[in-house]
């Protein structure tokens, strides 16, 4: 404070340098850093998972192994709640909230917190996937790197998308799925300014993963021989996958609600959920962990259990994942979707084979793959993510037509039965999902305090009707706020319609005072109210303008005309940014 710097600081020079670089070039350059860091986060989580699983492996043979998921979930919850002081869960809704409402600002601690907590949950046997936590980490890395470079909100949001894309690309070795997930689920918009850096980050994230872990496709490539009949049969698996997704989404939400109502302490709730999963795992070990081994076995046509056990396994996985995530364990739903989908697909194949044994159906791995795409597209309500992820993780481009069909039907069915996906449920219920170029988003960018019109003529409650005549002559609007003559507090509003019955009776000019006829129940808005809510209030009360009041003081009026005029201008600005 007491020294005056004479030469420009490094930060100043950096900021000046950054402001002179072409925006796209700048974003691409920063996206390279974000991509590398997001990729590293995913590799780190993979390693953590493998190491913890390796340590815990000998314990799995003991009778008390069922407590392992309970311990993992409890530790995960304690770590999140007491060490890094974050809320439970996988964090994707937080990332979407930040993109929707907070210009992509995310806490630095989120870049590592979910890695540790999900590693504890999943490696100990909790039924969840590592992908959503790594999305949170990647997004937070992107946000904080953007903060370091002093990027604006729009650019920061693009970096959040880069972080998420690189994380998904790295963990699945699937660059296209990373890009598609980022724009379809996280950002909700496809613009060149976002897409190019995201693609670069995705490539870098994938390369980091390949350099450190080798170029492994998670599920070995298989060539499926399909016929037209198989494509027709895929409609059935699409419906089954859609219904499974709806059941899965509802169960996740209901378990979360019920467990929060029944158990108050986060870690006890998570431990109870984990213990239940452990119990289920004794009979059906398919529910434990992220379950990639099960998917691999099914795709290789080596899963030996019959129809009933396979179907039971799919249901058990839905229950176990709902218990793990719903009670506060940390992890995502990507991997469980793949397991549920593959088991569902296999069950469907077994059923077809049982009913029509003479028809030469495609291999069971084919139906498992369709099931995976269907459940993924349905639960996430992101069909493109489902299609590209399955194509990339299985290397089966040849079957893309039935994949598209299944994903489209499943996502549509899911949207019809459960309009909001698991990721958006909380945000939509609170009106916080503001997608780019939607009414809600444009209105959210307008603040009531900027829209206040100060040209209203304020009158006192003891003003007589006769004194209003000259005021009406000079007024540009048809409403007059009324204030207390002593305290200056806002009391109500007089509209021209309230005055009209008395205006032509001069005998009343001295008899009527404004305090008697003002509308004291007129709705008031605060300068910090949501503009969308103000507009809805105007529609509901059939008024064109409302008084803005802070505390008890009148600040001005806000009118529908001004809101819509500013909305139009905002729309023009948004449209220009697109080009």
């Amino acid at each position, binding site marked *: *404070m*007491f*020294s*005056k*710097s004479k030469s420009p600081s490094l930060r100043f020079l950096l900021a000046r340098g950054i402001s002179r670089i072409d925006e796209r070039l700048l974003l691409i350059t920063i996206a390279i850093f974000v991509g590398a860091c997001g990729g590293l986060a995913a590799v780190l989580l993979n390693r953590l998972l493998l190491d913890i699983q390796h340590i815990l492996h000998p314990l799995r043979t003991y009778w008390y192994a069922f407590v392992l998921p309970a311990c993992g979930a409890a530790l995960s919850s304690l770590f999140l709640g007491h060490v890094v*002081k*974050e*809320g439970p*869960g996988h964090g994707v*809704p*937080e990332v979407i*909230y*930040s993109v929707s*409402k*907070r*210009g992509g*600002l*995310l*806490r630095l*601690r989120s870049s590592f917190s979910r890695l540790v907590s999900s590693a504890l949950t999943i490696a100990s046997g909790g039924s969840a996937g590592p992908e959503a936590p790594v999305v949170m980490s990647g997004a937070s890395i992107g946000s904080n790197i953007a*903060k370091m470079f*002093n990027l604006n909100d729009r650019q920061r949001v693009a970096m959040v998308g880069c972080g998420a894309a690189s994380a998904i690309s790295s963990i699945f070795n699937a660059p296209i799925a990373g890009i598609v997930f980022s724009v379809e689920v996280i950002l909700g918009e496809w613009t060149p300014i976002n897409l190019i850096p995201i693609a670069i980050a995705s490539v870098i994230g994938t390369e980091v993963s390949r350099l450190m872990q080798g170029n492994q496709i998670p599920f070995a490539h298989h060539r499926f021989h399909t016929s037209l009949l198989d494509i027709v049969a895929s409609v059935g698996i699409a419906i089954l996958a859609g219904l499974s997704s709806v059941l899965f989404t509802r169960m996740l939400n209901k378990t979360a609600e019920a467990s929060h109502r029944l158990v108050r302490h986060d870690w006890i709730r998570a431990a109870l959920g984990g213990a239940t999963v452990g119990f289920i795992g004794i009979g059906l070990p398919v529910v434990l962990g992220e379950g990639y081994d099960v998917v691999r076995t099914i795709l290789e046509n080596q899963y030996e259990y019959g129809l009933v056990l396979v179907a039971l396994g799919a249901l058990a996985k839905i229950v176990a994942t709902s218990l793990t995530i719903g009670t506060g364990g940390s992890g995502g739903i990507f991997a469980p979707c793949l397991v549920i989908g593959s088991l569902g697909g296999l069950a469907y194949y077994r059923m077809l084979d049982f009913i029509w044994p003479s028809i030469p159906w495609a291999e069971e791995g084919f139906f498992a793959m369709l099931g995976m795409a269907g459940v993924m597209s349905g639960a996430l309500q992101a069909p493109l993510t489902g299609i590209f992820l399955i194509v990339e993780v299985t290397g089966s481009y040849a079957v893309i037509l039935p994949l598209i069909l299944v994903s489209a039907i499943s996502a549509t069915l899911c949207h019809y039965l459960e309009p909001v996906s698991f990721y958006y449920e*909380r945000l939509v219920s*609170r009106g*916080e999902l503001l997608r780019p170029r939607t009414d809600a988003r444009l209105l959210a960018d307008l603040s009531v*305090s900027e829209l206040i019109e100060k040209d209203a003529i304020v009158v006192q409650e003891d003003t007589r009707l006769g004194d209003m005549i000259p005021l009406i002559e000079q007024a540009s609007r048809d409403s007059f706020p009324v204030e207390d003559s002593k305290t200056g507090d806002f009391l109500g509003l007089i509209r021209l319609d309230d005055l009209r019955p008395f205006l032509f009776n001069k005998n009343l000019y001295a008899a009527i005072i404004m305090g008697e006829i003002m509308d004291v129940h007129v709705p008031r808005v605060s*300068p*910090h109210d*949501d503009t969308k809510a103000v507009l809805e209030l105007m529609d509901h009360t059939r008024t064109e303008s409302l008084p803005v009041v*802070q*505390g*008890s*003081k009148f*600040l001005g009026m806000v009118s529908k005309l001004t809101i819509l005029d500013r909305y139009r201008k905002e729309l023009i600005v948004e449209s220009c940014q697109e080009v």
Partner: protein
Amino acid sequence: MKAQLLHIFRNTPFGRETLLESSYFCKTLEIEIVVYIPRTAKFLMYFENDVVQVDLDRSYLTSPETAETHASEIIRSAGLEPQFFEPQDYTASTLPDIPTHFDYMCCPRSIVDLSSKIGLGYLGPRVRRIVNSARFPVYIPNAVFKVWKSVAVFFGGSVNGVKAVRLGQKISQLSGFPLRVFTQLEGNSREGYESVVKERQIEEAMENWTVFDSGPFQENLYEVPHDALVVLGAYGHGLIKQLAFGSKMELIQSVLSNSMVIVGPHCGT
């Protein structure tokens, strides 16, 4: 629009003192006080380019059923009308967002640690982050309520120092209390400071300007009236710079027991 101060209320004797301080500050400057009674032990503040998570100590959640009554009584006793803030937005179900549109915010020296640590010589990291990111000045009250009768500004010639002088002048005008400006000559001559004053057109505020040209700064601080509201600028150094070079703000706040208003680097006074 009337200026507003955000106060996070702690329903304890210590919280009462800080609310009394805030109420006096608001009454004197004719600004509105908005009180947030926390329901969860943490909240988020989204600034322009940063997000700060404030983890409150559990004493902030003491007796929630009496908190509003206690806060109302204290505010009304100062002749102000209490306004309570309820969060509308939540980042997570237990993580409300507190808006950052206020004109001032009251922070005790530390809002995170236990009362035993709240005293001189320790400015919590969260308070520091808020100071660094906020567009509003941060009011750091004394641990025990004490009225202030003058305004003392520390001016070191920097941009933030100039902002602090302007804010001090504004507070002085609004409160009617005299303004004094203090400068310790360090790395610059008196003429150097005077040229900054002229260049920045703050001569009017510098009528009562005390320049320390000798002696250690800590000892010179004795000149600052005990009943002055101290206004000072903060560079917003990061932790490494702070550890390496120290900070005048830290030094002042650890030596003086006065209530302070800190003008951060992003403050838009």
